[in-house]
């Protein structure tokens, strides 16, 4: 058989394999990009809600509320605020809780329902949240958080509240090196310094 023809077949085979692997790579990369953008937008949605609520802890349109924090542990925070800035001065009770209820709509077993309640109005957030934690600090820039659940005394000492958010993709992304696949993760950490907790500073 012609040696030139055999060599050509071998090289063509290598070319086809290269194109095949490139195709798989491009496809995995675009999956990763789409899922990442989706996760990022889910993160920004939750971020926006948290950033709307937490700086307003203890806020009223013409005064500060004395006992702003009603309850606080690492998974749940309940506080008072005139969050809708109503001129009648009505104070709402706002609660954020990372529940242990799984989300049935996704195959990811780690994501749980995050809830936001304003008085009795409940909003369930099912956007792949796998971690949502609060940490409480009694001085600005402190690296040691207060023990949770917060005691009555400690509730009056809180000046900063840290939030850690982790969102995972609904499904695993598999690669050639990771046959099992893994969930894409996005994280956000932010320490809030609500102005109305300023009086709690020593």
């Amino acid at each position: 058989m012609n040696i030139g023809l055999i060599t050509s077949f071998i090289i063509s085979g290598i070319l086809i394999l290269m194109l095949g692997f490139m195709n798989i790579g491009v496809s995995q990369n675009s999956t990763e990009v789409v899922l990442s953008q989706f996760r990022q937008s889910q993160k920004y949605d939750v971020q926006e809600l948290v950033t709307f609520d937490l700086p307003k802890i203890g806020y009223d349109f013409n005064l500060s509320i004395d006992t702003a924090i009603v309850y606080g542990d690492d998974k749940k925070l309940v506080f008072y605020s005139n969050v809708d800035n109503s001129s009648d001065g009505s104070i709402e009770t706002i609660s954020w809780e990372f529940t242990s209820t799984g989300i049935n709509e996704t195959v990811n077993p780690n994501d749980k329902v995050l809830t936001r309640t304003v008085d009795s109005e409940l909003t369930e957030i099912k956007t792949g949240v796998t971690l949502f934690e609060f940490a409480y600090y009694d001085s600005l820039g402190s690296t040691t958080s207060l023990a949770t659940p917060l005691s009555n005394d400690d509730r009056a000492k809180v000046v900063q509240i840290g939030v850690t958010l982790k969102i995972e993709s609904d499904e695993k992304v598999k690669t050639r090196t990771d046959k099992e696949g893994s969930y894409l993760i996005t994280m956000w950490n932010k320490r809030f310094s609500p102005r109305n907790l300023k009086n709690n500073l020593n």
Partner: protein
Amino acid sequence: MSDFSNVLQVIGAMVLVSLLVQSANRKMNANSMLLVENEFESEIAAISQEIIEESRLLAFDEATVTGFVPVDIPAGFSDIGRDIAETADKVTFDDFDDLDGWSGIVSTALSDFNVSIEVVYIDKTTGIQTNAKTTLKEIQITITNDLVRFQNTTTLKPYYFSYIRSYYAE
């Protein structure tokens, strides 16, 4: 020669495909880098906001910590920087410009970030930094992370944030 002409053609095709694959790989790498950078930038923005919010809870100046108002404003204000009994530990800070010269590592679940802070007086008319005391102070924050670098270099990419605070807007 005619026996090997098809081999030469296939080798030529291989070179072209290799270039195509290399270009696709480069694009995919750039995409992944952007995703990582995006993730870190979101955290960097959160850290800068955190520091600015924190600084706003402190008094404007050492002279106003106790609520006392200096007779002569702005000459009665203190010099920029930490005052007596204040250490590099942020919990000892009681006014806005104590943050000047502070640098440290802010650890988050994502990564460790290097933060350095400067506080300067700002001229009311020109809006630029001045050595004279005024009623405006600016906090300048620089944040870097070991994993965020300028493209194709080993130089860390710094992120700059600033916030101007006015004594009269307390």
